């Protein structure tokens, strides 16, 4: 192993949302001089606007830093960012595979959260060296000793020399960097062996084509190298290799242990599949690296343009987003009520909201989103198994032998005071109790098996509100189970509105139907005529509401001085209606299509 490789440290940061990951990353960048304080934009790693607004990290980023340690040597540190939300567990596992170590940031007042725990276990599975960092130690409510104990009890890590830090105040930054240098091993691998690069992310640039973010596991790659994608066998000539420091910078070569990017005039982002191994076409490696499991969308919904004419724009926008987000999937579908649109699959609800917001913000589209649902597995009487990603595609009743829905194992970490409230919620959401562990005297880990459909419905919001925000949640798919499910339809003015159809558990159908009808009555503005709303299962009406007709909308006075103002008033009224979707004879506002999500509040 050469000098250079011995001085490389590849690490990521594991933290719960709000525990200070981005701030710590900023301080490290600042301290190592990658950016001066003046140049520094707050939270550099979270570069998308949305990420900054929501305080979360969505896409991975990698930054190279130079650090002169106390031992007098200069080290190259590669910080690979990880997302901190349950929707993006998949992306976390990608960044972990590119590292030898991880900083585990724990809030000195709040302690370990469920999601952090899940990610630490992932890191341990990947044989990463974990450095505990207790952050926000200058808060009045900080209890670093208690948190240390918690880390030892819960994870079984030795936390005696955990770094005590406050990223916000710049305390403990040097100690963090020293710990990285001393504790995290240098990357292994032989520079003379055939090239093996792990693609842990990719990005599409309109000028350069698909750019691969890679970790070189062995061998080296430089401009002019002929590379081969091991899964497809396709070959490309490298036009550029470089690193992010944090601005992209070309380098001569990426060698064993290094992290950076490769540009090779790759037109199609599919040729830089995340998890694939890049090798040298002239001297290929015998084996690819262990890849990632293929990502499976868990949540589906329909996305429709408010204006039918925007359909092509929506398609283009989705195509563009997909270039940088392989986990987004979509296919065209049509709705009787909404016209042409797309059925889209997402990693989770947050992912769905982010995509929706990006479409509206970055592509200036007016969208209607239908209520999200999971994928159901329908066992038909003829023995065929059908996957249903849209309630309207459910086969007719007589053809259904049984319906299976996805279940998850949900781990909920919560202060012991709220155990009762959480158990009650899980019960309501058809949960099966599996386990309860006292982590400390005050903190409990509850494990339930829950239908995923209930989680995406409003579980997270309910969990937060019933525990005053103290509970944290992690879940993983554990398989499909047969459930008593039925399709609930909504009729407006006698017409079935397919975009309102949902699949619900039989025991809940009556309640949901009634609540949905009431919600729609409140959300749909009055029309020129009375509009009956019916909730229906099969042929049976289970709830009925009425939207009364408008009785009065008139301008009493309209004389010489009023005409302009009154005309503008009517124009504004008309403009407001344009944002609504005309379905049959009824005008429906966008938010009504998501009404089902908020009916239990």
């Amino acid at each position, binding site marked *: 192993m050469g000098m250079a490789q011995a001085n490389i440290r590849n690490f990521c940061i594991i933290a719960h949302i709000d525990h200070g990951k981005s701030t710590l990353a900023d301080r490290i960048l600042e301290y190592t001089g990658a950016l001066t304080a003046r140049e520094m934009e707050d939270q550099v790693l979270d570069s998308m606007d949305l990420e900054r607004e929501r305080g979360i990290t969505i896409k991975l980023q990698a930054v190279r830093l130079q650090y002169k340690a106390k031992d007098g040597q200069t080290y190259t540190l590669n910080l690979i960012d990880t997302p901190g939300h349950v929707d993006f567990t998949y992306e976390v596992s990608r960044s972990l595979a590119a590292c030898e170590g991880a900083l585990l940031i724990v809030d000195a007042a709040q302690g370990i959260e469920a999601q952090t725990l899940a990610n630490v276990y992932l890191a341990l599975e990947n044989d990463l060296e974990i450095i505990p960092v207790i952050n926000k130690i200058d808060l009045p409510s900080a209890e670093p000793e208690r948190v240390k104990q918690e880390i030892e009890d819960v994870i079984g890590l030795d936390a005696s020399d955990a770094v005590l830090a406050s990223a916000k105040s710049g305390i403990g930054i040097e100690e963090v960097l020293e710990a990285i240098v001393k504790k995290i091993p240098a990357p292994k691998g032989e520079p003379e062996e055939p090239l093996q690069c792990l693609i842990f992310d990719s990005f599409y640039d309109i000028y350069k084509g698909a750019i691969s973010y890679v970790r070189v596991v062995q061998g080296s790659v430089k401009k002019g190298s002929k590379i081969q994608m091991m899964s497809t066998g396709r070959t490309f000539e490298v036009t550029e290799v470089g690193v992010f420091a944090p601005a992209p910078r070309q380098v001569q070569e990426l060698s064993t242990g290094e992290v950076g990017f490769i540009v090779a005039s790759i037109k199609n982002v599919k040729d830089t599949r995340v998890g694939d191994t890049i090798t040298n076409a002239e001297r290929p490696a015998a084996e690819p690296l262990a890849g990632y499991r293929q990502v499976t969308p868990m949540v589906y919904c329909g996305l429709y343009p408010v204006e039918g004419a925007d359909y092509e724009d929506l398609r283009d926008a989705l195509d563009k987003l997909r270039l940088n987000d392989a986990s987004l999937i979509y296919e065209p579908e049509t709705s009787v009520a909404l016209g042409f649109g797309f059925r889209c699959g997402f990693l989770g609800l947050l992912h769905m909201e982010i995509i929706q917001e990006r479409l509206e913000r970055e592509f200036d589209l007016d969208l209607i989103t239908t209520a999200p649902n999971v994928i159901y597995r329908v066992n038909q009487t003829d023995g065929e198994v059908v996957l249903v990603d849209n309630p309207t595609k459910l086969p007719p009743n007589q053809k259904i032998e049984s319906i299976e829905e996805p279940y998850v194992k949900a781990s909920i970490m919560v202060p012991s005071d709220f155990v009762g409230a959480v158990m009650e919620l899980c019960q309501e959401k058809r949960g099966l109790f599996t386990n309860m562990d006292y982590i400390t005297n005050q903190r409990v880990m509850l494990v339930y098996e829950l239908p995923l459909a209930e989680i995406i419905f409003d579980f997270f919001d309910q969990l937060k509100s019933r525990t005053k925000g103290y509970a944290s949640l992690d879940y993983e798919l554990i398989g499909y189970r047969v459930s008593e499910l039925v399709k609930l339809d909504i009729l407006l003015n006698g017409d079935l509105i397919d975009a309102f159809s949902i699949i619900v558990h039989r025991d809940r159908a009556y309640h949901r139907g009634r609540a949905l009808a009431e919600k729609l009555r409140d959300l749909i503005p009055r029309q020129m005529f009375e509009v009956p709303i019916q909730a229906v299962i099969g042929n049976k009406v289970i709830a009925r509401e009425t939207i009364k007709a*408008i009785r009065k909308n*008139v301008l009493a006075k309209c004389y*010489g001085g009023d*005409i*302009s103002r009154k005309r503008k008033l009517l124009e504004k009224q008309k403009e407001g209606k344009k944002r609504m979707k005309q379905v049959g004879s009824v005008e429906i506002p966008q938010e009504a299509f998501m009404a089902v999500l908020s009916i239990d509040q």
Partner: protein
Amino acid sequence: MPTVQPLKQGWGVYIHIPFCRSKCAYCDFYSHGASEQERREYAQAVIRHIAGEADKWDGAHGPTTVFFGGGTPSLLPPESGRAILKQIRHTFGDHLLSEVTIEANPGTVTGPDLLQWVRGGCNRLSLGVQAFQPRLLAFLGRKHSLEDVRGAVTAAKQAGLSNVNLDLIYGIPGQSMEDWRLSLELALDLEPAHLSLYNLKPEAGTPLALWLERGLTGVCPEDLEVEMYEEARRLLHLAGFRQYELSNFARPGWECRHNLNYWHRGDYLGFGSSAASGVGLRRWTWAADSRQYVRALSSGCDVPIGDDEMLTPVVAAEEAVMLGLRLTKGVNLQEVLRRYGLGERQGSCWHKLSTILHGKGWVDYDGSRVKLMPESYLVANEIMEKYLGEESEN
């Protein structure tokens, strides 16, 4: 305005008198208190303003109507009113002048004053009665009493004014159906020629809107307002009145010509601060600042303009439909298309729309004239809206 512009026959003159003794809770017109001296100066400014406009307009036929609105025009010294009318006659001619209206608050008119106005040419009086219940008048911020109303009507008759309008308001918080019926009956007892019935609307920035926002007052239930309107239509019909506009009723032949000109989208010139004018495709207002207005005219400067817009023929035509639909006789779409030089495309657009609305029973449409069905009067906005911006969608 460098060239002389023609005014369409039937045009009217509006004079804005921005003075009030006190501000009513629901009023969003431009008005304020003023000394007698200020009022005279204001009248002088209006006279100068009219004189200065003489060579801008070809009003060869002269105006058909003059309307003194406000504010409280009855606060204007009658001799000032006479002087203004004299200037109008002098500047534009008066051989077509047939209706001169003055608005008044019942508490501010006296017999001698009215007589002076009549001698100056005024032949119509519009009284802001609003209600006959002291508690409702107090809520609205109206300072007059029931005796004032009776006194004003008697004074008008003695002065020879037979064309009297009474304004009434329905939908006042706390107003019951009995209150409303009584107001209508008492109003009819005064034998007016014309009645305007207005639904109380909290305009932004008025005390009423503020009270509602702060929860200091409730609202009149919508269903009750609807019943009040229907009840009024029924009672007035029985009393021999004919509804000719959404809020206006008159004995046959006594409709307000000045206002009909607005609803026909005719031309009108306004004088006085905040007064609006509309000629052809242009509409503008003079700035709503009476002191600035007086200063400009006494120093020979241009009168400052508030809003000023030039409509496209399509927008003007849409306005004509919006205004025409207020009339119970409706609006002739063919005529509107012709008047604004619009083509077949707009015509077929409106035809399609009118046919659909006719099919739903919301309007009556015979292929050229479209009018609201009485059941649609109170949802007129929903229908008018459909005629706006129709062309751009096709």
